[in-house]
């Protein structure tokens, strides 16, 4: 469950101020797959940063699972991310020196969990995303689609309550992109995960339950996907 109330985010660029988010209020119930669309500069990345506890709002509040995160100190934000959130990025952001399974295990290892305890789960997740037998491959030995699958497995390992995806298909061809979206959809439905996905691609947005459109830092549209289609 995500609750955003009147969130404002102001960036300073030299002498001028940019209101990246200008009083956004949004509520995402548990298990909903929310797609966010908007042109460049609409504020969608800023919103994802706030929901992902990567940043805090200038004013307003952001509650995830009832926890107000806008006032948390940095290290608490780190722990919150580690324990409650999963991320998928456009550029996969895998560590090049780690193998597939190690990349998946990374959040657990950061939490200080024992590798041998977590590894069977990591293997199971990799198997689920279709990477059985490719556990020890490094990112440079994987295709774009495969890298994004590793990223999905990594996002799911910590059993987060919210999954955040930033243009997860932006760097993939349309066939692979559709495959990756299907994976995200399936995996999150099984787990009753709340998903917030930012995308440019209208077809990608259709995968979700609900579509919010942003422009100039405000919500300009909020509809169920069937309506949008």
């Amino acid at each position, binding site marked *: 469950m995500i609750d955003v109330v009147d969130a404002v985010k102001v960036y300073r660029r030299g002498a001028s101020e940019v209101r990246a988010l200008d009083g956004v209020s949004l509520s995402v119930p548990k298990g909903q797959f929310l797609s966010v669309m908007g042109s460049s500069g609409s504020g969608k990345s800023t919103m994802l940063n706030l929901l992902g506890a990567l940043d805090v709002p200038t004013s307003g509040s952001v509650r995830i699972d009832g926890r107000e995160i806008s006032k948390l100190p940095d290290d608490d934000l780190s722990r919150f991310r580690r324990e409650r959130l999963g991320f998928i990025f456009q*550029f996969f952001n895998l560590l090049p020196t780690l193998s597939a399974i190690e990349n998946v295990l990374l959040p657990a290892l950061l939490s200080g969990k024992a590798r041998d305890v977590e590894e069977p789960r990591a293997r199971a997740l990799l198997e689920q995303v279709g990477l059985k037998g490719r556990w020890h491959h490094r990112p440079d030995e994987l295709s774009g689609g495969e890298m994004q699958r590793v990223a999905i497995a990594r996002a799911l390992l910590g059993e987060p309550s919210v999954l955040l995806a930033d243009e997860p298909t932006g760097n993939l061809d349309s066939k692979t992109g559709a495959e990756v979206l299907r994976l995200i959809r399936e995996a999150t439905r099984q787990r009753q995960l709340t998903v917030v996905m930012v995308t440019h691609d209208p077809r990608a947005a259709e995968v979700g339950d609900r579509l919010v459109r942003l422009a100039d830092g405000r919500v300009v549209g909020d509809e169920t996907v069937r309506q949008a289609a």
Partner: protein
Amino acid sequence: MGALLRFVSLRHLFDGPLRTALTICGVAVGVATLVGISSINRSVMAAFRSTIDTVAGKADVSIAGTATGFPEALLEQARATPGVQHAAGTLTVVAPVKGSPGESLYVMGIDFLDDGYFRSYEGVDRDVGKLNDDLEFLNSTDRMLVSERFAKAHGLRTGQTFQLVTKDGVKDFVVHGLLKESGPVTAFGGSVGVMYFASAQEAFGRGRVFDRVDVKVDPAVGWEPVVGALRSRLGPGFEVDRPDSRGASVETMVRSFQLGLNLGSAVALLVGVFLVYNTVSISVLQRRREIGTLRALGATKASIRSLFGLEAVLLGALGSAIGVPFGLVVGRGAISWVSDTVSQLYVRVNPQDVELGAVEVAGGVALGVLGSLFAALRPAVIASSVQPVEALRRDVAVGAGAVQVRSWPTFLGVGLFALAWPATLIPPPVENLPIGGYLCIFFVLMGATLLSPLLLRHLNRPLAGPGQVLWGISGRLAADNFARAPVRTAVPVSALSVGVAMSITIAAFVGSFQRSAEDWIRQSIPADLFVTSSAKVAGVQNQPMADAVGDELERFEHVSAVDRVRVFPTDVLGLRVYVISLIPEVYERRGRPTVLEGTLPSPEARARGLVTISENFARRRNLSVGSTFPIITPTGVHTWTVGAVIVDYTSDQGTVIIERQHFVRQFKDDQVDSYHVYVDDPSKIEAVRQRITERFGKVFDLYVLSNVELRDEAMNLVGSAFKVTWAMEVVAVLLALLGIINTLLAAVLDRTREIGLLRAVGADRAHVLKLFAAEASFIGLTGGLMGVGVGAVVGYVLTKVVGVQATGWNFPYHFPFETAAQMLLVAIVASTLAGLYPARRASRLDVVEALAYE
């Protein structure tokens, strides 16, 4: 090009002010060390020369004998030689100053009437020209003109008294007037006194002798025929030469001292070059897209190369501009550190006399700039190979320089290693200039540097485990990152390893030498007490004592034997050898000299002219048992035959041991530099020492050292000769740490996105901090280990090749385990500390900005 430099390079340099400052600072320190050392070398040489040159004045030819001088009558013989216009005799005495240990006064005994043709003296409070009529001055044996510098240093004014140590004991002298510091009064670091020659002969118990006769030649005749005439008239016991040719062997003499200094400053410069290389390579890696854009916009390969070359030249020039004046400070600071040692071993030098000449300034700037340019060559070539298309690529793999086994650095590295040993076989082209040994050291250092990326690439696995245990996942990731950009990581690792290696090298050499010297003293001269005047160790600084002291010492209760040792420096086969005269019956019975060749000559053999020589003299002049060599003595040239070669560490120039009775007869010198006293009851040593001090302490400026104290003193002397070299290794290690900061700052920039990702998936600041701190500690560990390995090899080469070629001494090599352990610890701790700042910067990156970073 100017526009490119201004818009692209300068902005880049200003954008990373810390990194630019670190690099400039590195070059400055390297240049300062180099300039400082060359100014020290210059002033040590100048100190040697000034005593020869300034004292020689306007002489065309000078005649010198041995350290005991030659009879006055020789002056008349010289005057009567055709072509000689004027001749003046001089007596010179180096007299220790009572009450200020280590300090001596250079006293010249002259005849003002004759001397005026050669030298001019300027009085401060007295007209020197009128001294010829000054009966008080001429008729007293204690009146002396002293330099203003000496007077000032001792708070003396005209009419006041000071004390000098002579062979007959401490004597009072009266300041008759002050001399301005010019001409001959600048000799010996300006610590000069002038007496009437007859007064000096009397005061210092030298008899009616001169040490030098200066000759002015009739220009119509020319100096060559006059030299020939003088040589044939005076016979072979004298050196008749142009004054300037006498300084020629000075280089040979100080070369072993300079060996350590030159090595140290070269290493500091080398590490400085590493730092520039580091900065420029990082800059190339980070600016690949920028370079690609420039190329896409039409910049040629050549202009990219020039751009990076110019950038390095700029850094080098700025570094040199700071480094050169700083070098003077370094030189002055360092010389005051070593001046005691230099004075004890060779000649007196003053810190104030260290000056920067045009050569040092030009050399410093040239090396700073050219070194930087040289360092930039490879990165500049790499930069020019960047393709324009790279400008369009996102996420260009920055810093991930792949290491190929089959690449030119590997081949070159292996090749250099292979050439290292053959290089040591190159014979020294000049006396004790071990070019081959130096080359070998350079090959080993460069070979290790070139091969280090290959080594580092394979270290992630062995380091991952310990990293994980010590630092958790951060340690594991650090091990990966460490091996990820081996080419870049190799630079700080190599720089650190060079610093560590050279510290270990010096420790190995000094330690091996000290150990051998200590064994030598313990075994060869096991006397219970050593009695010297004015200096703790007999050599350049002490004042010889009268022979009669020995007779008295022998009558002391519990004294079982006394060896009378004279340490007499004289030129033999072009080396400033110490002729040691002693009593073989005491020396051989009490001590156990280590004989390397032959047998110690019997009394009969000694009477036939057989002597014992030191191994270093034998090696340097290719002498073995049965070889003969001449020594000029006051009684003519005598030829000696080598009877035995032994281990002896008295002088790096070599020693010849002659039985005292033969020495006294032939050198007409019965003084004693050091009495070696053997006590029959060990429990009475302290009592005997006290009685000697009571009896002679007031008369002489006496030192009575026990065997242990003498050994300590010798160890200190060796240790302090390398003090400056040590300091330079510390500088090298500090420079290497700057390199580590530099590299890690660059790594933070390169991996900003990655840090953002780690933070996004839940890493907190401590994780990131540990990640970079761990990487820094790995750099320290590998640099330290590599340094220890390379240091063991280079230390061996320095001891067994360079040392043997430079000094002729071949002592056993001992690896300095303690220093190695210390340096390893220092390398790890210091590197980790150096990594803290970059680590802090990394941990404080804003997550959102880091993720968006390109």
